[in-house]
């Protein structure tokens, strides 16, 4: 689903991604871990077609970025830590806006489905301004799955959420992923990442330095693995 070869991203003379290689198969849930400044957000933005690579090849859902960016965007759902929602509109209106922008068919039905999925049917007519951060994040996920994408990118979705909200978010994430989508999620929260994802990659100083799966980790824990991969 996602193939990245020798990806380089420079901002002026600063190199953030330095020859990154990555392969994600369909249906995998990858947790992308790494220290601050490693380039996780930059990488996700490139996959999301919001940023252009300086060098290298990126393929998502069979299309090359940046040339076939529009085709990629139709198959991609993105949740970053800013909710990308309009506070002065209701939850329903936000979804309707994105649905119309994307040109979705059967929009009303789809909105009902999504609201049920994220557990916000009761609050559909309320202004997003009045939502708690947790509810906003759930609505953001709703927005991101509205067009039924094959690939989902989450950039630190648990940021700013308390325990209850995070648990609720996990439920939504799991049901979203269970529908066969390919997911890449960056996270600082190793414990959460361990339960949600089935594969863990560590990004450090612009390249992937280590990768493992839940199966391979069976006898140790993610924290130890993470620390080890950064120590090299």
């Amino acid at each position, binding site marked *: 689903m996602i193939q990245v070869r020798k990806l380089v991203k420079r901002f002026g003379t600063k190199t953030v991604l330095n020859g990154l290689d990555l392969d994600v198969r369909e249906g995998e849930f990858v947790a992308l871990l790494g220290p601050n400044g490693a380039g996780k957000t930059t990488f996700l933005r490139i996959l999301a077609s919001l940023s252009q690579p300086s060098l290298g090849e990126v393929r998502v859902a069979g299309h090359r970025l940046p040339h076939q960016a529009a085709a990629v965007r*139709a198959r991609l759902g993105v949740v970053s830590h800013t909710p990308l929602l309009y506070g*002065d509109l209701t939850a329903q209106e936000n979804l309707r806006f*994105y649905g119309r*922008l994307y040109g979705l068919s059967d929009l009303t039905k789809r909105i009902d489905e999504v609201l049920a999925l994220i557990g916000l049917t009761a609050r559909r007519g309320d*202004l997003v301004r009045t939502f708690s951060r947790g509810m906003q994040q759930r609505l953001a996920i709703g927005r991101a799955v509205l067009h039924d994408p094959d690939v989902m990118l989450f950039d630190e979705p648990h940021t700013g959420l308390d325990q209850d909200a995070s648990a609720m978010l996990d439920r939504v994430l799991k049901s979203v992923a269970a529908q*066969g989508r390919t997911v890449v999620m960056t996270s600082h929260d190793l414990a959460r990442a361990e339960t949600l994802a089935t594969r863990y990659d560590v990004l450090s100083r612009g390249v992937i330095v280590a990768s493992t799966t839940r199966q391979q980790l069976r006898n140790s824990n993610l924290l130890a693995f993470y620390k080890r991969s950064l120590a090299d």
Partner: protein
Amino acid sequence: MPRAEKTFRKESPVSAFLRAIGAVAWKDLAAEFRSRELFTAMLVFALLVIIIFNFALELDISTRRSVTSGVLWATFAFAGTLGLNRSMSIEKDQGSLDGLLLAPVDRSAIYFGKVISNLAFMLIVEAIVLPVYSFLYGVNLLQPGLMLILLLGSIGYIVVGTLLAAMAVQSRTRDVMLPILLFPVVIPVLIAAVKASEGFLSGGEAAAIVPWLNLLIVYDVIFTSLAFMVFDYVVEE
């Protein structure tokens, strides 16, 4: 297994493009209708400027008539920057510009959607200022010909303003940047609009008005095309 076939409407690219423009414009108008922040700011500002002009230029009736066009357009130009700034800032601050950029539509659809909503705000403010000015200064401004000039001039202003606002909002000095960028390049619109309005208000001879209308139309067409071509470069990364 691409799910895309069932999810998206089957429509021509043009239809999708127009739909996206409509969605963006509607979103801006609906959100603004709820909060009315932007609109109130523009309107209050415009009215204050008109009143200040009254004290700044103490004039008798006949002189007043001849400066009306200039005062009006100066007011709209200043109030306009408030609206433009705010409209773009909302997207930038909430990061929702990314949300728009993620949509599988041509980027210029975002541009045109914004132009339509910005234009709507400006025209509504003008629609309120005109009768107020007429009332305060005893000049009848509620004439269709004048409204045409207002429309053409506003289009030129907003078309360039939206493009430049998208740039200004991404710079460090964002609030002061827009007027500085916008005013020098929008001077032809102001000149043409003021002269056409003047010509109209003082008798309406075609020869005094038509060349200015032509200039406005030429400006509008050229810059709409240009903005359409370069907007991508302004929002990409």
